[in-house]
């Protein structure tokens, strides 16, 4: 593609290239193109094409056995319904387009800022953005209100990350901050053509004869929101459909349900069956014409083109294809769509899945997957933000060997009153008042502890009004710690590059910030060096306890043991812990060290390593202060939900980017791992032998892993063999492991980390892994990359033939959400990325229970009943023609009136079955949740499968047989009461049609478990409509207008006034329905399923009146485990010390005598930005074969990021 040239403030110039304007159009049609485009799209569908072919066949008079309208009326009906749906969808898209297009933005036009609609923004325009505004197009940042042309954006809309990102304008443009300068700006940007890579941009700015390279860090992309920045100016580079956001709006791959696939297979089978019938009847016709028809030519001469009986048979084949086509019902597809749409609305409307704090209702974003929700066997869940809230709460601490904080689960203690502190955060809760007492007593250790928390961090404060502090924390852990310090009276109020201002117990103290020794993954700690107002230099450090403990002064040893005990207690409760330590620094020592640091930071090669060595050096011999424990709060109801889903035989695998220990902790607190489990297999690539073997040779490693997997499997199987030997004396079962998979009583769990997983996912091992994993109750994969998440899902999907569901909330879950059969997005803390990629979204993990066990189960149940009945109905309806063929010389004569054929599926029988498909409930929602085993039939595919299909069609065939042969037996000799004969074809047709409508209505009545008013209305209404239309169609009036279209005039009147006809109808109905009823009754009576039992129970309950329903309580076990989780990405430390992100109140400070420092630190910031880039690029590059969706930006949530 050609490069793109954009010149600022030069419309004429830019117009030459005809770039897209900023109007977006996601709607597909307009008023004039709607009909042709929509029709074209619709006819691309196989079903519609099939019916068009039929229609064409019908237009050939020689084979037309039905009038054209029998096909065209249903076809038009279907097309119109679909078109209306498409049109409304498109209208809403149009409306939202309009709404976006009409948003206002400030554009620099002819020397002044003018409000313009978004759609009028053009490439090359300079626009002004204000805080919290959406970026209107992809723009090049020119300057901002912040120093150095920095600005902050939130990219949640683009990549789902809520943390702020920094963008910086070119230095040359960053002082363009006023309108006249911007007016004169005439730089020209030459850049890459539009593409969808969110993290890449290459271009060059030509201005005043100079060239300036441009990269992604200077671009603000459409969809971002400006944050913490008063205003900024930018030049539009890409607009409208060429923006990166819009370029990424590809169509989602259409997911199809297993029922869909089954349905397609069945339709093919039916089609084959149809052809078979056609062939049989065509052969019959040939024989008939040869032996009978030839002779009958006296009264019925052959048509001129009818050369031979064989040719006539050939034509008859097509004629029969036409009249028997209703076995493949045209309305099936539409009805299925309508049902799914209805079920989706029920999900959207469910108040029990509405999360009021966030104001988010559950949303079915895809309307085609509902019944698959009733068949889920595997759930793949993300941890952070899905199982946990991703809210860190400071819950306990250990200060100087003294533990504070209560276990809230055990005792209902009152919340600590922080009213002594005017600056406290009211949302913060702590449950041990002794800590406050200690603070008030001015215990030095406690004070130092909180001083450390208030000083040692990279949080940015924002004081919107006096006392109203908002912290911008990079990781929730840090925010929690600083907030805790704030509430305990050490309020972090402000920071400048050189100072940190605290409000210590009401007293404002300013510390001089000498250095930030930032966090990274290897160091696993961060420190600050500050000079107190008294002139004392102190180093405060916090970090993972193992790391901190190694660097303590020997004098802290005793304290270390006590703290260590506390730490393991914290860890046992699944809390995230950090150890805190400090060190007094000697002035001279520090000066020397500082010099070396400054020197090292200017070194170009190995800067990182040199800095690390320096940091290591100073962070030695520290004194332990204590430890903090942060609760990674589980979302509400998670353990209960998991327990419930487990009872429904749904296997839940947790796939997380978190550390092994954290993941296991969460596993324990979710009750997925329990102490009473027989064995928890941990496969961790980090355990030494694995890592070393991995380095030496992959082959040995493979053997090692595989033998481990094998032995684990043997172990499980061996045990179960022993345990089952007593009951089952089947020795040959040794050969077949699958027998034992059923028989395993013991509970196992598997925990595997990403490194091992990478090897185990090789083709040789994946089977063993899968076997082992499926033998385990719980599987936890930790430290996995987004791509590995998708791979695991893919593995199960491929080998298990099971329906998989992936649930997650972050951008790192997108790949797995897209891979799984069903993707569920949690609309939680981490932006919209997962939600946008998902098929269903809601706010809380616990709603999954209701989605699957209630909505999914109902949808599946309804869909299965619907399909079974639909096939039955159409077979019963159509095959009558087949039987009639044997008595009418195989001439493709229809049994019914053509109007009846036209209307049967769309008018007479569509609504009752739709009502059943929409409203039916075998068991109400409370019982669905209370007996999770009710979910199992769906997983085993019991309600609608090939066997069920055969039974349905068989029943249909039997019904059609009876429908034909009972009147056949009764009719030949039948006369009316006035003696006039009555065995004519039209009376026959009306009788059979009436019987059919009544039989299928009775049948739907038997199939309906839940008779709402709507069901009554539709079933009785359909019957009434049938008779109304019957009489209307056969009335004198209609015949008078179109004599040749309504030849059945008067038949209904003459026929239905006969008692004998009603006797025939009654007999047919009883005979058709009875056998099914007997079978059904015997099944319920002798082999009741759980559903039957619960139904009965439900009914007896209802008679007794409502009872208190106690929900299952999940027993939580606790055990001692250690977990040290402190992980977030590389911090803002350098940014803070460089002072770049600190707002100066006056411009003069810009010109302060810091020129040298500035240039020096600008290399810091570049460095930092560069490193940030490395982090973000790491994922796609290290995973060569990642799916497209994963490529591009940072795919991990902050807590998951540590691994890179």
């Amino acid at each position: 593609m050609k490069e793109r040239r954009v010149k600022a403030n030069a419309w004429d110039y830019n117009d030459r290239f005809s770039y897209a304007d900023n109007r977006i159009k996601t709607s597909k049609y307009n008023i004039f193109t709607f009909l042709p485009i929509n029709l074209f799209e619709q006819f691309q569908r196989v079903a519609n094409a099939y019916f068009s072919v039929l229609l064409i066949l019908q237009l050939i008079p020689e084979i037309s056995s039905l009038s054209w309208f029998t096909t065209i009326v249903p076809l038009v009906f279907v097309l119109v319904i679909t078109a209306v749906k498409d049109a409304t969808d498109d209208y809403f898209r149009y409306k939202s387009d309009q709404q976006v297009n009409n948003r206002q933005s400030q554009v620099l036009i002819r020397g002044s800022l003018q409000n313009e609609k978004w759609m009028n923004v053009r490439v090359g325009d300079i626009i002004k953005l204000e805080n919290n505004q959406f970026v209107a197009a992809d723009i090049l940042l020119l300057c901002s209100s912040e120093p150095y042309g920095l600005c902050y954006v939130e990219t949640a809309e683009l990549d789902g990350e809520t943390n702020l990102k920094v963008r910086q304008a070119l230095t040359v443009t960053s002082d363009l901050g006023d309108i006249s300068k911007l007016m004169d700006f005439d730089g020209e940007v030459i850049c890459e053509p539009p593409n969808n890579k969110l993290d890449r941009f290459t271009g060059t700015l030509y201005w005043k004869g100079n060239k300036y390279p441009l990269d992604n860090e200077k671009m603000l992309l459409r969809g971002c929101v400006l944050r913490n920045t008063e205003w900024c100016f930018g030049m539009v580079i890409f607009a409208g459909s060429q923006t990166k956001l819009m370029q990424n709006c590809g169509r989602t791959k259409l997911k199809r349900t297993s029922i869909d696939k089954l349905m397609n297979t069945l339709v093919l089978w039916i089609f084959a069956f149809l052809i078979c019938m056609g062939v049989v009847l065509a052969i019959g016709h040939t024989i008939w014409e040869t032996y009978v028809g030839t002779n009958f030519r006296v009264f019925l001469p052959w048509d001129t083109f009818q050369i031979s009986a064989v040719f006539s048979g050939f034509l008859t084949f097509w004629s029969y294809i036409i009249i028997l086509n209703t076995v493949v019902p045209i309305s099936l597809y539409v009805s299925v769509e309508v049902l799914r749409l209805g079920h989706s609305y029920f999900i959207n409307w469910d108040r029990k899945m509405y999360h009021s704090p966030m104001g988010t209702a559950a949303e079915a974003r895809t309307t085609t997957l509902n019944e698959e929700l009733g068949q889920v066997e595997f759930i793949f869940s993300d941890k952070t933000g899905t199982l946990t809230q991703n809210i860190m709460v400071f819950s306990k601490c250990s200060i100087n060997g003294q533990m504070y904080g209560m276990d809230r689960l055990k005792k209902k203690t009152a919340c600590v009153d922080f009213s002594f502190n005017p600056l406290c955060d009211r949302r913060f809760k702590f449950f041990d008042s002794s800590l406050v007492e200690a603070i008030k007593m001015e215990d030095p250790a406690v004070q130092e502890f909180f001083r450390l928390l208030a000083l040692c961090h990279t949080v940015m404060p924002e004081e919107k009004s006096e006392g109203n502090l908002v912290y911008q924390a990079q990781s929730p852990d840090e925010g929690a710690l600083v907030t805790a310090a704030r509430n305990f009276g050490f309020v972090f109020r402000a920071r400048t590059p050189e100072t940190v201002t605290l409000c210590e117990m009401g007293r404002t103290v300013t510390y001089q910030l000498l250095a930030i020794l930032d966090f990274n993954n290897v160091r696993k700690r961060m420190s600050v060096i500050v000079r107190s107002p008294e002139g004392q230099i102190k180093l405060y450090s916090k970090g993972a306890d193992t790391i901190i403990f190694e660097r303590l002064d020997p004098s802290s040893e005793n304290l270390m043991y006590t703290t260590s005990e506390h730490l393991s207690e914290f860890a046992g409760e699944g809390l995230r812990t950090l150890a805190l330590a400090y060190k007094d620094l000697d002035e001279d020592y520090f000066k020397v060290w500082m010099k070396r640091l400054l020197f090292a930071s200017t070194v170009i090669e190995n800067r990182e390593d040199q800095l690390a060595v320096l940091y290591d050096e100073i962070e030695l011999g520290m004194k332990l202060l204590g430890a903090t424990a942060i609760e990674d709060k589980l979302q509400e109801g998670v353990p209960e939900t998991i327990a419930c889903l487990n009872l429904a035989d749904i296997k839940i695998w947790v796939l997380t980017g978190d550390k092994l220990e954290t993941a296991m902790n969460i596993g324990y607190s979710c009750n997925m791992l329990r102490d009473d489990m027989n064995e928890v297999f941990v496969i961790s690539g980090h355990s030494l032998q694995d890592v070393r073997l991995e380095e030496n040779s992959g082959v040995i490693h493979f053997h090692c892993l595989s033998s481990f997997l094998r032995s684990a499997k043997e172990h499980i199987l061996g045990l179960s063999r022993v345990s089952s030997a007593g009951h089952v004396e089947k020795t040959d079962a040794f050969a077949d492991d699958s027998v034992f998979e059923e028989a395993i009583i013991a509970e196992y769990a598997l925990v595997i980390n990403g490194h091992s997983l990478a090897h185990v996912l090789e083709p040789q091992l994946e089977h063993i892994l899968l076997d082992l994993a499926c033998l385990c109750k719980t599987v936890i994969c930790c430290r996995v990359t987004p791509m590995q998440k998708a791979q695991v899902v893919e593995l199960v999907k491929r080998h298990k033939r099971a329906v998989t569901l992936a649930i997650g909330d972050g951008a790192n879950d997108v790949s797995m959400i897209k891979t799984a059969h069903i993707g569920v997005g949690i609309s939680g803390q981490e932006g919209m990325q997962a939600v946008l990629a998902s098929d269903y979204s809601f706010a809380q993990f616990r709603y999954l229970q209701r989605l699957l066990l209630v909505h999914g189960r109902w949808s599946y149940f309804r869909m299965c009943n619907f399909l079974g009945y639909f096939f039955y109905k159409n077979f019963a309806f159509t095959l009558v023609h087949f039987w009639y063929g044997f008595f009418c010389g195989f001439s493709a004569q229809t049994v019914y009136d053509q109007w009846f054929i036209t209307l049967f599926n769309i008018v007479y029988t569509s609504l009752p079955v739709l009502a059943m498909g929409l409203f039916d409930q075998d068991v109400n929602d409370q019982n669905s949740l209370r007996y999770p085993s009710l979910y199992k039939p769906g997983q085993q595919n019991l309600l609608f499968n090939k066997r069920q299909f055969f039974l349905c069609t068989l029943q249909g065939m039997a019904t059609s047989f009876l429908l034909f042969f009972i009147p056949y037996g009764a009719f030949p000799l039948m006369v009316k009461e006035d003696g006039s004969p009555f065995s004519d074809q039209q009376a026959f047709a009306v009788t059979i049609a009436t019987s059919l409508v009544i039989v299928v209505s009775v049948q739907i009545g038997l199939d309906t478990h839940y008779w709402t008013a709507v069901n009554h209305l539709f079933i009785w209404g359909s019957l009434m409509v049938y008779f109304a239309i019957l009489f209307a169609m056969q009335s004198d009036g209609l015949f008078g207008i179109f004599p040749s279209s309504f030849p059945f005039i008067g038949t209904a009147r003459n026929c239905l006034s006969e008692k004998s006809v009603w006797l025939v109808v009654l007999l047919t109905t009883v005979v058709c329905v009875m056998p099914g009823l007997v079978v059904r009754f015997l099944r319920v009576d002798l082999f009741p399923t759980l559903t039957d039992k619960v139904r009965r129970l439900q009914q007896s309950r209802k008679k007794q009146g409502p009872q208190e329903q106690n929900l299952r309580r999940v027993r939580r076990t606790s055990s001692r485990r250690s977990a040290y989780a402190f992980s977030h990405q590389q911090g803002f430390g350098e940014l803070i010390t460089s002072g770049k992100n600190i707002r100066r109140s006056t411009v003069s400070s810009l010109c302060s005598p810091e020129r040298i420092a500035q240039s020096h630190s600008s290399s810091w910031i570049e460095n930092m930005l560069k490193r940030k880039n490395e982090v973000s690029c790491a994922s796609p590059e290290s995973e060569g074969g990642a799916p497209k969706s994963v490529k591009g930006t940072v795919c991990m949530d902050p807590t998951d990021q540590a691994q890179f």
Partner: protein
Amino acid sequence: MMASSYSAKDEDGHITVSGPGGGTLRNKKPENTAFKQQRLPAWQPILTAGTVLPAFFIIGLIFIPIGIGLYVTSNNIKEFEIDYTGDDTSSPCYNCAQNFSWNNTKSCTCIIPFQLDQPYESNVFMYYGLSNFYQNHRRYVKSRDDSQLNGNIDSLKKPSKECEPYASVDNKPIAPCGAIANSMFNDTLKLFYNDPNGTSVPILLTSTGIAWWTDKHVKFRNPGGNNANLTAVFQGTVKPVNWHRPVYELDTDPENNGFINEDFIVWMRTAALPTFRKLYRIIQKNNNMAPTLPRGNYTLVVDYNYPVRSFEGRKRMILSTISWMGGKNPFLGIAYITVGSVCFFLGVVLLVIHHKYGNRNNSANISN
């Protein structure tokens, strides 16, 4: 990496979500209506022994009496049938059947004596029955023009294509057109009672009232409205090729002539099955107490015009009385008795099964 199904709405949607403390929550809470929460009051029937078994017994108890009633009624109906096809040398119509030719203008008459063993009371209906005659063949069924038969002048002059090859002869339209009309049954049947004293008394056969009222008065109409001069109305049309007389000479009675001739109407109502009977005449009951057709000897005189031998068809003449449920029809009675018995029997069997093996108290043992 990006949302694949982007909609512009989503750009908006995030603001409120990102600031949960912001206070401006959109009120998206779904309405609490029974419909939306799927709590519509409903009747939830369950198949239990208490409902199913009585149903079977009730059906059995209703069906068996109906069946017996039907069977008895059907047996009380008197019916007499003569096959006069004439393919057998002993048959009186053998010669006529053998010598049949379309060119015969003079019809061949055969005389068939028969005897009624029982007297026939009330109205007696005389049918002709045809077998192996495919009035329900698709090409046959559609070979008519209802518009023409309804008196439409345009269709009269220009019959529908469906009537081919009986639409026109020498460019003159056929009235009535089509294969059905062309193949109209045209044997004439007369009935004589052989009085014991030797005289042969012709029996009065009523030829009106044999067609459906709707057919006679709505579906079939002569062209030209009430114009009594049918000859003029049908001017320009020709008779169907097999017919001996044009359509306006079917009867002398103007109310039973042309398209509204009842024999014609009855024929045009095509039969459902290849073996059928159609009403030919009605023998009205006498006013006095004497039976309509007393026991004794009768003679059926047939003008044999209608060839069926070529396709192995058969022709019959049937005399029958009727009852409230129509003609003689043992099928329904037997079927009802059978079905009723089976239902009753099933009821008993199910009852036994239920008592022996059924789970009457299975709500207690729900396990999870």
